[in-house]
């Protein structure tokens, strides 16, 4: 058949969203429970440095570390970047600064948000303090954000000649046993990614034909195999496919299974048959549901035809066509 004029390529949003769970292990468990209790905790490394946020393994020696210390809720900005247009789920809904804050008593800095009226109000070395969230449950968001603190500045370098923060000198980290009532041992971390998905020209042509209840594949110019659905290229030969070939509408069940457990998000009554169907003229099978026949009477070689539902992009299912079963030899390469 001749190729139809190319329809405009399709595109649609694809949102990937999932609430992941995390087991915290002993160190993160203490850290997040501490935040709930308004106790900022760090961990001391084998060479005496204090890491906030804490880690379970020493980044220098790889030793397991677990000596917890309490640090101050005040600290110094070590660097920052202005965020003029906050996005969904960021700590503040008005423009704010992303800051790295070295809490007094700590040797490393923590990433968080600083509530400030504008970039002119933020500078490296400025003193800040934690603004605790009103409701806390053991998460980094228990720190609502940082806010400017009234104490004297540490200057642009944030350190004096002895290598210690001037304001931090008084605030040495204090030992903490990490014990709290009702430790937080796990968290839920909701993740969301927003994409725009374009299926490409080959699938767009395929879908345009399906809208007219026609199944159109593409033939590889080299191996002559007909691909349904078409991909625009032959995966075996690595060449573009352009010749369009209408296949079906009838086909042969080459193999199948009987599904007895309900899959999430699928509104299909079990048991049902999920089958590989080689449409007449196609060189590989596609997958679809078989209906219009008791599930236990479906068999390999059964001849079937598509059943369309109102508004469906794909056939709703395939049903037996009124003809004898195909010979095994006719489809054994198409399982």
């Amino acid at each position, binding site marked *: 058949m001749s190729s139809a004029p190319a329809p405009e390529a399709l595109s649609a949003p*694809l949102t990937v969203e999932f609430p*992941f769970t995390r087991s915290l292990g002993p160190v993160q468990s203490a850290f997040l429970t501490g935040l709930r209790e308004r106790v900022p905790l760090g961990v001391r490394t084998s060479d005496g440095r204090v890491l906030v946020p804490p880690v379970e*393994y020493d980044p220098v020696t790889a030793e397991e570390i677990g000596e917890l210390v309490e640090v101050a809720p005040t600290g110094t900005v070590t660097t920052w970047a202005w965020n003029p247009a906050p996005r969904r789920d960021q700590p503040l809904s008005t423009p704010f600064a992303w800051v790295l804050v070295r809490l007094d008593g700590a040797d490393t800095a923590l990433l968080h948000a600083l509530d400030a009226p504008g970039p002119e109000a933020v500078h490296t070395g400025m003193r800040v303090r934690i603004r605790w969230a009103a409701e806390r449950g053991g998460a980094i968001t228990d720190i609502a954000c940082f806010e400017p603190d009234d104490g004297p500045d540490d200057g642009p370098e944030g350190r004096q000649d002895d290598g210690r923060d001037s304001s931090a000198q008084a605030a040495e980290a204090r030992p903490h046993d990490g014990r709290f009532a009702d430790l937080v041992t796990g968290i839920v971390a909701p993740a969301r990614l927003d994409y725009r*998905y374009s299926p490409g020209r080959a699938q767009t042509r395929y879908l345009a034909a399906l809208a007219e209840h026609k199944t159109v594949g593409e033939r590889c110019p080299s191996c002559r195999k007909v691909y349904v659905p078409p991909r625009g290229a032959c995966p075996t030969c690595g060449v573009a496919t352009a010749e369009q070939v209408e296949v079906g509408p009838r086909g042969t069940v080459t193999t199948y*299974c009987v599904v007895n457990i309900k*899959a999430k998000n699928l509104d299909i009554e079990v048991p049902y048959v999920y089958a590989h169907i080689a449409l007449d003229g196609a060189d590989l099978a596609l997958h679809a549901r078989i209906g219009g026949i008791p599930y236990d009477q479906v068999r390999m070689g059964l001849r079937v035809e598509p059943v369309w539902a109102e508004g469906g992009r794909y056939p709703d299912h395939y049903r037996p066509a009124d003809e004898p079963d195909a010979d095994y030899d006719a489809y054994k390469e198409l*399982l």
Partner: protein
Amino acid sequence: MSKEPVAVVGIGQTKHVAARHDVSIAGLVREAAVRALQDARLGWPDIDAVVIGKAPDFFEGVMMPELYLADALGAVGKPMLRVHTAGSVGGSTALVAANLVAARVHRTVLTLAFEKQSESNAMWGLSLPIPFQQPLLAGAGGFFAPHIRAYMRRTGAPDTVGSLVAYKDRRNALKNPYAHLHEHDITLEKVQSSPMLWDPVRYSETCPSSDGACAMILTDRGGAGRSPHPPAWVHGGAMRSEPTLFAGKDFVSPQAGKDCAADVYRQAGIADPRREIDAVEMYVPFSWYEPMWLENLGFAAEGEGWKLTESGVTELDGDLPVNPSGGVLSTNPIGASGMIRFAEAALQVRGQAGEHQVDGARTALGHAYGGGAQFFSMWLVGSEPPTS
């Protein structure tokens, strides 16, 4: 210049379970790595590089977890590589590590693979609702079950063979302290009366969902000389891939699997795998894949694999024990499953498999596959160093 011989001198696994709520991902991988170091009697400074593998990031939702795991694996200041080849990743990760030693890039490499399935959702991670595409209508086992039916049709295998595999592997797992499923009251009748989920696949013929990690220390000839325990020597290793779907794809016995096995046997000088290999750890996520892979890997002629299973050849005390550890059917932290196969093969030839030791095993094959029968990785290990 010939390749440097590669030896496995340290092996460590976590006790695989449904959920390790007591540890972070870092804590989980650390446990396996420390056990491998202890087995080799080495410390972090002895490791020159770390090669890590896991299944897709979407499973646990930690993007590039290797970055965050560098501290836990002593990789700070050293090269760290991440490998990803779907379900076969544990195998290909070990092979990348082995190749670094064989090429004399590094002398001693820590390789590790993991999955924390309790904190992930594999089905979700693998079947995102892509716009315009028809969703998979069948769930995880529904993808595999039609291929199994095709195998049964092609070979005329009796429909009981799958249950024999599951019964064997679950009993073998009872002898493996690290295996996830320890079904002490398992019987063949129980397997055969378990619910039919995706006919022809029954519940007891499917793999579990596990949290676990596996680590190995690979080293050169000099390192092997210092090993406190007998090393396992790598005699051959290969990877192959092919598309998930193409005209002519044979899901029952994929060409890439045949080619991969042939390459490994050629490297190792194996002419008759059935006679020359003493134990096999193969990736069997659904019971029927044992007879299917027996054919694909050249242990049986086409159509004959099920006869080996049925006649007891693949039992622990059989002539060709398959999955003495209990296999993927008993333990499946997806990203680690391939490496567990490789490590269990190495344990056999080191004589350190404990209760599931195959008597006198001198040559063992580790096999992994993944994707829609898309990636294959295998290695052959022996108790003696390679001669060429």
